[in-house]
């Protein structure tokens, strides 16, 4: 049963500042998407637009053709598990974890109570504690429990790994993968911790300063990204004519990062080292300061 969440020309303006610009996106069911971008790139805003939790300034969001905005039927297919933080103005902070989960159980139509309890146990969550009194890691876990137990067709997580230590993160990826393998639900996960997560994302969506930079199958993207290094002259000849995203020079040595179009190739025969950068290195090359 193929489902599509479509965003057309999404723009969002806050206080006269455009934080999202003409974003076109199509999310298919049955995939794990990674949403990566710098702080302030607009990731959280995009996620809240896609789930109709905040209104778009321009553009439309539809689920299988039905508009999402204030549409209970369409909303049943999504779940946006927001980052919880102690100073947010929402009501969540004064609640105890179990009360929060009870609200989730009341309103999320496919809520799996058994799973919520099991995950809370696995994460060592104290459900009697007030949310504002939880550590950042525990708050992330509440977010994760809600997202997973919602059993929504399209589930969105905003920085679920933030605040988790490395062991907890590995656990999260494992649990996410298990759920995906069992149910084929679509997950869209925004994250800062790019390298660990790159293996589980089938497609990666890169947002830069409110604009969609690219959306592509992770493996294919990595295969067409190259890091070429060697003597400056040799490197320049090998990549001449191609758009280069990031340059590092030290003395006569130079390293550049570039993305080749499908079918394009590097000029052979030059004395240069050719490597594939990791997703994280590629991201920094594309979205770091020098890329302006």
């Amino acid at each position, binding site marked *: 049963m193929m489902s599509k969440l479509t965003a057309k020309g999404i723009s969002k303006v806050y206080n006269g500042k455009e934080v999202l610009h003409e974003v076109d996106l199509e999310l298919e069911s049955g995939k794990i998407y990674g949403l990566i971008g710098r702080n302030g790139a607009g990731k*959280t805003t995009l996620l*809240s637009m896609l*789930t109709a*939790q*905040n*209104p778009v300034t321009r553009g439309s969001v539809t689920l299988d053709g039905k508009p999402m905005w*204030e*549409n*209970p039927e369409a*909303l*049943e297919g*999504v*779940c*946006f598990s*927001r*980052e919880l*933080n102690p100073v*947010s*103005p*929402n*009501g*969540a902070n*004064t609640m105890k974890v179990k009360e929060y989960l009870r*609200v*989730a159980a*009341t*309103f*999320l*139509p496919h809520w799996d109570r058994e799973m919520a309890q099991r995950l809370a146990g696995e994460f060592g969550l104290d459900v009697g504690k007030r949310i504002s009194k939880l550590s950042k890691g525990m708050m992330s876990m509440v977010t994760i429990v809600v997202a997973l137990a919602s059993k929504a067709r399209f589930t969105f997580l905003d920085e679920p790994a933030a605040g988790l230590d490395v062991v907890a993160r590995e656990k999260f990826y494992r649990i996410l993968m298990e759920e995906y393998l069992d149910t084929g639900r679509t997950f869209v996960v925004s994250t800062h911790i790019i390298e660990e997560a790159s293996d589980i994302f089938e497609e990666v969506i890169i947002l830069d300063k409110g604009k969609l930079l690219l959306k592509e199958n992770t493996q294919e993207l990595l295969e067409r990204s190259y890091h070429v290094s060697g003597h400056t002259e040799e490197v320049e000849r090998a990549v001449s004519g191609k758009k280069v995203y990031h340059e590092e020079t030290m003395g006569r040595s130079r390293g550049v990062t570039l993305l080749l179009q499908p079918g394009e190739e590097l000029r052979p025969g030059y004395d240069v080292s050719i490597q594939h950068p990791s997703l994280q290195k590629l991201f920094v090359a594309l979205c770091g300061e020098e890329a302006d």
Partner: protein
Amino acid sequence: MWKRSVKFWGGVSLQSLGICMGLALVFLVFFAGGSFAAGGLGIRGSVGGLLLLYPYYLTLMGVFYMSLSALGCFRSYLPLLVSFNVTRKQAICGILLHHLAVILGLVGLGAFVWFLAGLLGGEAGGEMAGLIWLMGGTMLLVGSFGIFLGTLGSRWGKLGQILGVAMAAVMGGVTGAGVAAAGKEKVWAGFNRLAEGRFLWFMLLGLAVFALVSAFAFLVNRKMEVRN
């Protein structure tokens, strides 16, 4: 999915009613209990006196609650519910109906208590009934103001919050001071005089104002944003 909203708000309403009832009882015993114990009216008389007074305290608690709760509802429950996929229309409806439910509950309870005390029969009963409309109307008006402020707070943040708290303090202070200054008998007499006017129109006015403010709430919050 209305069922889910009913389940949620039903719980909130029952909780609020319980708190109002409980606090009203505490205040009743604290403020009025002493004078009855000393007054020498005997058990029957005392109980009758307490039953007479309880609805007034219920109204007092109701007024308190009405002035405070809406702001909290708009500032915390509304974004919370929207973050769980409840539409703004439904969530606001829930808030409004919740307030109506609490008012209805308190008014109904007050009427029931007076019914138990046998105060609603005969010609005096007509006047008491009038007082019930007065209480309902008062709570509706205060509730409307609370919702108005809640809507402002939802839209314009801290300012609305400050106004709301100030208002609650003023309302509570005025009512309390008024009762204390006038003395019990004067307050009863005052109410009884007012009751001669049969306050149905007052209640209807309250409903009308409430409806107006509800429309305002829907309008202002049509594109409410959930902030992180």
